[in-house]
């Protein structure tokens, strides 16, 4: 029954896609996020579902989509270069078999992210993609939220519908992603056009945001708590009544703390005394190893290069004093940071391409935010809030990924692709007039679509 329902859903998407090929693109995003083939017991698990949807999406785009004005954006070029560089480091990897295993899914994520912006030609498509991403992720978030409320949490033990703790189903990853999509959920509730903006949509959005906030508690991840703090602070940027906002946050915090499980508050205390915590000390030791490694291997060691590390961990207390000279040795410990993951695996060239991709995205979103901040028309009012929501989500990812190795998380690349899509859409439909010659003071203004 379970398998038949999933199969029926996918067949439904394919049927709709035959008339509107963009549905294939949404189907690929759904398959990549939810992994229905991994949830299936016998029907879908033998099929290359993502390959089928990618071929359909590409074919639909090539055969039927309007391509007028389509341009390759700078960030797509950065992703192409990153893809080529990753291919090169895979060929020269320290651990060829392990590198090939990661390359097998990374190239697909990058290729889809390079392709995706070409398909985002209308406001509705951008919104549709974001809605599909959020609702797909909600299949895990709602599960996690309900289980947290009834007390089934714990890192690696909160089952989000799949027990293998990989991809978005991994605790720290879903913690970061769940918080990163909160601004987008709020945007969709306020400016979305797919569903009527009535009390039902508002109620579901509030419930989903609440479930998102519960994920870091259920998975007992410190990264998630940092991300929650960040999303609260960034909410201040566009808040019209800042004092009221701060007071509201204070009240919410005071109400929430007594309900937090003891296991969660105990673990959160280790954020301050990170040196006494083995998990955090291991990270610091791995980061030290990575920095030394990249000095002698500036081109990186290829995917999963961390397998070569040997680290010495000196446990210290909260004040930085050694605990009875307690020393532990370990090896092949994961990077636990997207930044060090990029540095160790792809070296300085890969790291700078990756960093350029992210920071260019933040900068471009800021430009959009500022340009349309005072837009009045119904057809433009949504642009600045969407740019803000995507930018905030992106910043949350960049902060969360300081502590998690999610440099190639496909969900994040879809988010970047939607940012590029928004930017390209605005450029295409509302180009800026050329700058006037020097000495003239004609204001730059948008040209209506």
């Amino acid at each position: 029954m379970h398998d038949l329902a999933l199969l029926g859903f996918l067949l439904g998407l394919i049927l709709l896609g035959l008339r509107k090929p963009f549905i294939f693109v949404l189907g690929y995003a759904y398959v990549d996020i939810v992994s229905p083939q991994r949830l299936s017991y016998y029907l879908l698990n033998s099929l290359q579902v993502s390959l089928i949807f990618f071929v359909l999406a590409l074919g639909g785009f090539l055969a039927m989509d309007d391509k007028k004005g389509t341009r390759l954006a700078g960030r797509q070029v950065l992703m192409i270069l990153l893809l080529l560089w990753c291919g090169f480091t895979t060929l020269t990897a320290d651990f060829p078999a392990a590198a090939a295993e990661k390359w097998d899914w990374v190239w697909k994520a990058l290729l889809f992210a390079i392709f995706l912006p070409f398909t985002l030609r209308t406001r509705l498509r951008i919104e549709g993609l974001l809605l599909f991403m959020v609702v797909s992720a909600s299949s895990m978030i709602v599960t996690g939220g309900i289980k947290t409320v009834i007390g089934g949490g714990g890192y690696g033990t909160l089952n989000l519908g799949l027990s293998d703790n990989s991809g978005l189903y991994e605790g720290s990853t879903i913690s970061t992603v769940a918080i990163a999509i909160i601004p987008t959920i709020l945007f969709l509730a306020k400016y979305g056009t797919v569903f009527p903006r009535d009390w039902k949509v508002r109620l579901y959005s509030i419930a989903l945001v609440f479930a998102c906030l519960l994920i870091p508690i259920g998975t007992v991840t410190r990264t998630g708590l940092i991300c929650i703090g960040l999303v609260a602070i960034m909410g201040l940027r566009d808040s019209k009544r800042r004092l009221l906002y701060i007071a509201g946050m204070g009240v919410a915090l005071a109400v929430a703390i007594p309900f937090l499980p003891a296991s969660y508050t105990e673990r959160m205390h280790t954020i301050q005394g990170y040196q006494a915590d083995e998990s955090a000390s291991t990270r610091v030791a791995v980061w030290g190893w990575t920095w030394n490694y990249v000095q002698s291997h500036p081109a990186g060691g290829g995917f999963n290069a961390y397998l070569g590390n040997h680290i010495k961990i000196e446990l210290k207390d909260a004040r930085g004093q050694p605990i009875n000279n307690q020393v532990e040795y370990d090896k092949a410990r994961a990077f636990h940071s997207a930044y060090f993951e990029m540095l160790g695996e792809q070296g300085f060239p890969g790291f700078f391409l990756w960093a350029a991709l992210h920071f260019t995205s933040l900068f471009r979103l800021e430009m959009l935010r500022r340009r349309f901040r005072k837009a009045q028309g119904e057809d433009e009012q949504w642009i600045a809030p969407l740019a803000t929501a995507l930018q905030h989500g992106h910043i949350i990812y960049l902060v969360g990924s300081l502590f998690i190795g999610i440099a190639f998380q496909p969900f994040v690349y879809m988010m970047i692709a939607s940012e590029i899509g928004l930017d390209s859409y605005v450029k295409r439909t509302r180009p800026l007039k050329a700058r006037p010659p020097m000495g003239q003071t004609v204001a730059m203004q948008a040209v209506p679509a």
Partner: protein
Amino acid sequence: MIDTFALALAHALLALTAWRLFKRKDLDHDGGETRVVWGRRPDA
């Protein structure tokens, strides 16, 4: 039970989203204008 509920809820919403997008004329072109594809109007 919870897994099935969340999965069913998400899929029902995704199906509804896909259907509502499918019915919208402005999915492929802003403003909802149609264009000729392979000699016929796709939304005709």
